[in-house]
């Protein structure tokens, strides 16, 4: 990942910043400037997601992409946030404990880094919400 590309989406990656249409109530993650339902009549505002949701589906990665080899096996899931939008994220912890419908909450973790000299990319992952 390039440094500018990461920096541009810092708000979304760190704090789940998205948008919300005040006209129809739709939530968007990642943020959209225009509401797909209301088009030019939409009233978009910034919205910070609560960070809670549930697993819609998941897969367990055994053969990881470069930079993630150390973490296998790990669960990669599609998570439906409580406000509605879905996103893809790693579920931290034992992949055996991940199942469809699992309640999760967001945590701040390292997403990766450009080797030993490059930037460290931080952002959001999810863990089972046991509370």
């Amino acid at each position: 990942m390039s440094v500018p590309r990461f920096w541009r989406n810092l708000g979304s990656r760190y704090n789940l910043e998205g948008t919300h249409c005040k006209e129809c109530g739709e939530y968007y993650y990642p943020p959209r400037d225009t509401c797909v339902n209301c088009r030019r009549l939409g009233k978009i505002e910034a919205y910070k997601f609560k960070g809670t949701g549930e697993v819609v589906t998941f897969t367990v990665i055994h053969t990881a992409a470069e930079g993630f080899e150390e973490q296998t096996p790990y669960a990669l899931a599609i998570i439906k946030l409580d406000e509605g939008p879905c996103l893809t994220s790693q579920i931290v912890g034992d992949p055996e404990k991940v199942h469809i419908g699992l309640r999760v909450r967001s945590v701040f973790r390292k997403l990766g880094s450009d080797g030993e000299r490059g930037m460290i990319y931080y952002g959001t992952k999810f863990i089972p919400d046991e509370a």
Partner: protein
Amino acid sequence: MTIGIVSYGAYVPRYRIKVEEIARLWGDDAEILKKGLMVLEKSVPALDEDAATIAVEAARSALARGAFDPSRIGAVYTGSESHPYAVKPTSTIVAQAVGATPDLTAADFEFACKAGTAAVQACMGLVSSGMVDLGLAIGADVSQGAPSDALEYTAAAGGVALVIGRNESELCAVIEDTYSFTTDTPDFWRREGQPYPEHGGRFTGEPGYFKHVTNAAKGLMKKLDTKPEDYDYAVFHQPNGKFPRNAAKMLGFSKEQIAPGLVVTKIGNTYSGSCMMGLAATLDQAKPGDRIFMTAFGSGAGSDSFSITVTDRIEEIRDKAPKVSELIRDPIYLDYGQYAKHKGKIRFA
């Protein structure tokens, strides 16, 4: 002017390694070590955790507990001896991740195990002068101990964030005063670019920890004209279980006063988080009106003492974020191989 703690938050990674497991590898006697160190196991960061992620989690926990607008934070100072970048402040990452940017000042602190309390003092100064409304002071570490070194048995991971403010109705604890004692003592250091710290043998105990802790503690009690009996609780920096117990005894504090804050036995020495973790665990159970005496120690060397009185507000905010006891229950144990991987002790060519 009254200055104090508006909120606090702690974070401890879920992974642990037992003293037996480290001793097994190096052929040491685990029973002698456990008795000597009074530590049973230590916390280990996940593969995707470092001092910055721990600082963010602790800070977010403090914000959840305090329930104030993060844009009020005018200063973020993170103390650590394991900042992920040599150049690029951890505090900027924290400030962004808690939604406090951009109207604030930020910097990283380093003073071995007392960088967090040094950050608290800096925030007290900024808050009391009126330069900032709220200050966020954090101590967070993923500390390093070289393989087979004595430090490997205790060097742990964790962090604590304190929000410092001056609005009396908002404070969950008043900081009555602070006092520091600092000298140039070669008890512990890590050179630039080196992965593990070194310790200066005989300087570790008496000329390092005990001299600074007792002088800072006595200095503050003299300044305030207080004595150990005036306090309900006491917290001392806990590099192991023995040092804080001995320091308490030397100063005249009882076992009961230090018991709630002695978290080192189950999580090890969280370095910049260590003393503040003891304070967080004590705040988790203190009652309004209780007085807490806290003394941090950082190698190099110096001690910061604080006299703190808990207010009624503690009851309102305490349960809004996880307590230290909740954070340290249900650990996942690692063997030495997994631990070495988590700590980056295995190097790929």
